[in-house]
């Protein structure tokens, strides 16, 4: 709705601008949150990542409901010690994922074939919560870095890092363009979609220009096509705790994971 010169409101179609702005804002906020997450030692970040992956794997392999229930309870206890914003963020994504899986399984339940439906939803809830907690408490840059320890190409990791940077930088630029479009969108305007495609085009050109400058900047600092991450594996107090928890998780899985 916008105001005419006489002060009357008219309907207008700038919902897509608002939606785009909201989507960009939330993406950038998530990246900013990741950027201000506490710095952890490289070794700790690696143990966090591989512990989370192991937990998801064990959840998938487990039969019966004991292991997922034990794991889910422990996860909720761990989650309860976190800040409210982290709890809300983690639960929001995992509850949505569990509800979607339940919705998908509803026909099977109605036809009498879905006795495992709630268990699948529980496993999805636990898996998504685990990964969401990992993402909320570990910088994405640290997670990318840990990939080097499983022999992922260092250059590929640099590309991930640069991609993350560009999502932030171009997202901010797109937001500024959308704000400018919104501020100039006075009254009824049926051609805003055209302006929107203009924004996409401008972003494309801008990203091309930035990529060229980036390449020149790398060249200036001696880049000739190869890149090596020089980072020693350093562990803190978190690693033995996590490894202890991993040991307990494996024990629970062996005892109750596959009856």
């Amino acid at each position, binding site marked *: 709705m916008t105001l005419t010169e006489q002060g009357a409101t008219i309907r207008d179609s700038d919902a897509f601008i608002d939606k785009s702005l909201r989507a960009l804002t939330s993406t950038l906020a998530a990246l900013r949150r990741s950027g201000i997450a506490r710095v952890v030692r490289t070794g700790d970040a690696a143990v966090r990542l591989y512990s989370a992956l192991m937990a998801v794997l064990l959840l998938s392999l487990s039969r019966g409901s004991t292991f997922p229930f034990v794991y889910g309870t422990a996860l909720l206890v761990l989650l309860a010690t976190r800040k409210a914003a982290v709890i809300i963020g983690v639960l929001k994504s995992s509850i949505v994922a569990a509800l979607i899986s339940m919705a998908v399984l509803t026909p099977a339940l109605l036809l009498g074939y879905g006795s495992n439906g709630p268990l699948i939803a529980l496993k999805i809830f636990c898996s998504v919560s685990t990964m969401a907690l990992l993402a909320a408490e570990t910088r994405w*840059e640290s997670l990318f870095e840990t990939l080097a320890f499983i022999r992922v190409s260092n250059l590929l990791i640099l590309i991930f890092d640069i991609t993350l940077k560009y999502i932030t930088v171009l997202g901010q630029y797109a937001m500024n363009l959308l704000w400018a479009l919104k501020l100039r969108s006075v009254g009824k305007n049926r051609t805003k979609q055209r302006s929107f495609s203009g924004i996409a085009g401008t972003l494309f050109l801008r990203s091309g220009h930035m990529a060229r400058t980036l390449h020149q900047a790398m060249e200036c600092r001696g880049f*000739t096509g190869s890149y090596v991450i020089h980072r020693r594996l350093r562990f803190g107090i978190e690693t033995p705790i996590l490894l202890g928890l991993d040991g307990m998780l494996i024990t629970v899985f062996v005892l109750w994971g596959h009856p």
Partner: protein
Amino acid sequence: MIRLNGVSFSYGDEVALQDIDLSIERGSAVALIGPNGSGKSTLMKILTGLEMVNQGAYFFDGQRVDPKALADRTFAKNLHRRIGFLFQNSEAQLFCPTVADELAFGPLQLGLDEEVAEKRVKDCALLLGIESLREKPPYQLSEGEKRKVALAAVLSLNPEVLILDEPLNSLDPRTKRFLRSLLENLHRSGKTLVASTHDFNYLKGIFTTAVVLSQDHRVIRIGPYDEIIADQAFLETHNIV
């Protein structure tokens, strides 16, 4: 140290530089001044070896810099080690996950061992006052902090020549004063400085020579910096002030 003989450059049909003759001595401090679009940034990219001249020749320390010479990795690395370039847009220059990685990138790429690189990271972070930013992602810093990180990343290579494209552009007064005094110290320590600028007052006392580029992409005057900056009529005629 740096010599350009009859250099011309164009981006497709768009002329950026015409018939430039220029000589820069070791240890000098040269300001490139001229209106927007006169070719200052292009000239600096040529000096850094990022753009290749269409006509004429560029010599660095007696060696011709051309595509053939730069195809030799050793020559290219050596040139980039000796000439540091601070881009106008610092954001484009920063690409590593953390500030510490950013500062270490150049030294490690040039084959220095980790201990030496780490020492350079520490020294440069201390010099620019950015030790507290070491673990932060560069793209989340303020404009002034990004400029400092970009400059520290360049200085970690310990270049002999420092080329700076509008180093004080869009910075707050405190950061401008800080960078001004840093540039003064770098020049005093023997670095050759080449910088484009519109902030004549902030940079007063640093430059010895000014090279003036005109709207038609030619060098129209070379002389003592203070003398050229004092010539208001000349600067107004050529759309510089």
